[in-house]
């Protein structure tokens, strides 16, 4: 797989990398498929295609409704009194009481309440992702463009560690972080990520490959050192890729559950997923449900904002990373 991937990615990268985005989705979308022919010529052919489009649109719309239904139920449920929660779809009596209750519950659970939860989640994602991406970019550049002793061996070992399931190392990690004194605060889910991410290195390496050597050579002939060349010439060229990785990494870290569950002992340092999970577990009765759902909904807001802002980039990157087989 890797070989095909690399060759193909490289080709794509060479043509695309310096450009703004790498979303081939839209440009490629008007291509062929099973039923629809080329749209431009032959006006008489428009008819069956329009009918097909209508049918497909209707089907996809119905499916979309199914996809969105749980979210819709969730939003509406937060405005219901707990007695209505399972019996109606639309609230009979609208109330925002669940949000007030949620606020109090969170305050009871941890100092600073849900605001603290947001801050914790923010603190354990945004700076972490920033450092992680930069560190990974340095390593990716070294692997792609520099020649140094033992490079291939180190790279193969790094690829090998990608295969190791998290479940194998997570318990010794928990012990190790405990011994290092990291589990009492948020540090256990911060510090280890400062050392870079292998997947990011692997991904960015392809982009650095795509940059012609002449560019960095020119910079170095002008007297710039390695680091200077990297930071001011090469890094800007892979900025789109960096941004995409940062967004994906942010979403992954923000949603991470098992890591914080194992490594964050102090509930004042709970991230939002942990906080919401704890709220959900704290009460068995139905009266708790609206406020738990309110907390869940609020915890989704940052992701929804990020997704709304970067949806083209996110979706493009998935389609892009799929152009491998």
């Amino acid at each position, binding site marked *: 797989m890797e070989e095909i991937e690399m060759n193909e990615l490289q080709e794509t990268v060479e043509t695309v990398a310096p450009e703004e985005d790498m979303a081939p989705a839209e440009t490629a979308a008007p291509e*062929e*498929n099973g039923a629809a022919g080329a749209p431009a010529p032959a006006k008489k052919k428009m008819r069956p295609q329009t009918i097909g489009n209508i049918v497909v649109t209707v089907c996809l719309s119905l499916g979309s409704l199914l996809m969105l239904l749980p979210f819709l139920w969730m939003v509406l*449920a937060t405005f219901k009194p707990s007695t209505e929660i399972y019996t109606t779809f639309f609230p009979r009596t609208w109330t925002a009481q669940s949000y007030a209750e949620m606020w109090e519950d969170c305050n009871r659970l941890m100092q600073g309440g849900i605001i603290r939860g947001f801050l914790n989640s923010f603190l354990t994602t945004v700076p972490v992702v920033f450092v992680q991406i930069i560190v990974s970019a340095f390593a990716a550049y070294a692997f792609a463009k520099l020649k140094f002793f033992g490079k291939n061996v180190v790279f193969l070992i790094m690829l090998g*560690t990608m295969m190791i399931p998290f479940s194998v190392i997570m318990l010794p990690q928990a012990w*190790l972080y405990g011994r290092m004194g990291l589990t009492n605060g948020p540090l256990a889910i911060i510090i280890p990520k400062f050392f870079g991410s292998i997947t990011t290195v692997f991904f960015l390496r392809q982009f650095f490959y795509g940059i012609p050597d002449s560019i960095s050579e020119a910079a170095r002939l002008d007297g710039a050192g390695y680091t200077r060349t990297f930071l001011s010439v090469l890094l800007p060229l892979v900025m789109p890729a960096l941004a995409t990785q940062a967004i994906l990494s942010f979403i992954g870290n923000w*949603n991470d559950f*098992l890591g914080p569950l194992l490594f964050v002992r102090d509930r004042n340092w709970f991230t939002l997923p942990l906080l919401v*999970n704890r709220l959900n577990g704290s009460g068995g009765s139905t009266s708790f449900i609206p406020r738990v759902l309110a907390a*869940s909904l609020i915890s989704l807001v940052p992701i929804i904002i990020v997704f709304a802002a970067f949806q083209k980039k996110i979706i493009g990157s998935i*389609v892009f990373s799929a152009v491998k087989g």
Partner: protein
Amino acid sequence: MDYQTEVSLSGTETAAPQAEEPVSVKKKTPVPKKGGLRRQENLIGWAYISPMVIGILVFTAIPLVMSLIAMFYAWDGIHGLFESPGVGGSYFKAIFGGIESVRYWRSFANTLIFAIQLPVCMIIGLFLALGMNRNMRGVQTFRVIYYLPGIMSIVAVAIVWQNLFKADGTVNNLLGSLGIPPAKWLSSNAGVAFTVNLLLVWKGVGYSALMFIAGLQSVSTEQIEAAKIDGASGWMILRKITVPALYPTIFYLFVTGLMGSLQMFNEPYILLGGYGIGENGMTVVGFVYYNFGESKLGLASVGAWILAIIIFIITAIQMFVDRKRQEDY
């Protein structure tokens, strides 16, 4: 793996970049004069990768070795590993036929059951991709909507499903109003299998669809046009041209999906509200986590390593198939 060739190819070009005499640029082995430059590049290279190397050594290699050793120790995760009493192979015996075998292999079976969603996801995803690959209005919106559940926090999403499928939850209420008796969505084996798989399909179809859309770009237009002229039906084209062209995507989705599925924890854990109530949703990773809570890290390690070996085998098969496919080209 042929990284070496690629690496060294691009490496030699950068090897002698800022030569004072451009005459020697093409030479593969640097002249002794440039030994200093070589050393500098060695240093810079290692400096750049050193955080990664240290990180892997400390946070992956050490835990990895520890988990290997832990399989033979009654380690509670509080004391040091070697302060714990050794137990020989008794954890292996416990899992292979001993007292832990029922729980472990049950969790193993659950893990496999929760992989049923994979082919379902892929089939639905394929049809969604065919729909969303058309040249029509709103396609981008559809892509966003179908992908949306995939990036949502699993905690929030699973809590919603928990409430929908509770014994007295919305779904059972709805069924009741239609005169259908309530089902045990979250408290019976079949119910859990269905609900978890449904959640995973809902969360995963968007991703499958996006991957297939990408794969569809490589389906040859001329072939389809030719088939149409020959009077082939849409179904025939799909079966004989589109799907075969998508084999790489299908394979990739299946293997990566299987890896993810084998390491599943979050969805059933949150959906069923932890393992206090029952174990009918416990996965292998859940077994590991559960024994962490029970302070049996040695047992947990044995459980985790069995899974790891299976994952290694799948990776090996994947690499073999990929290599073979590339040779065929």
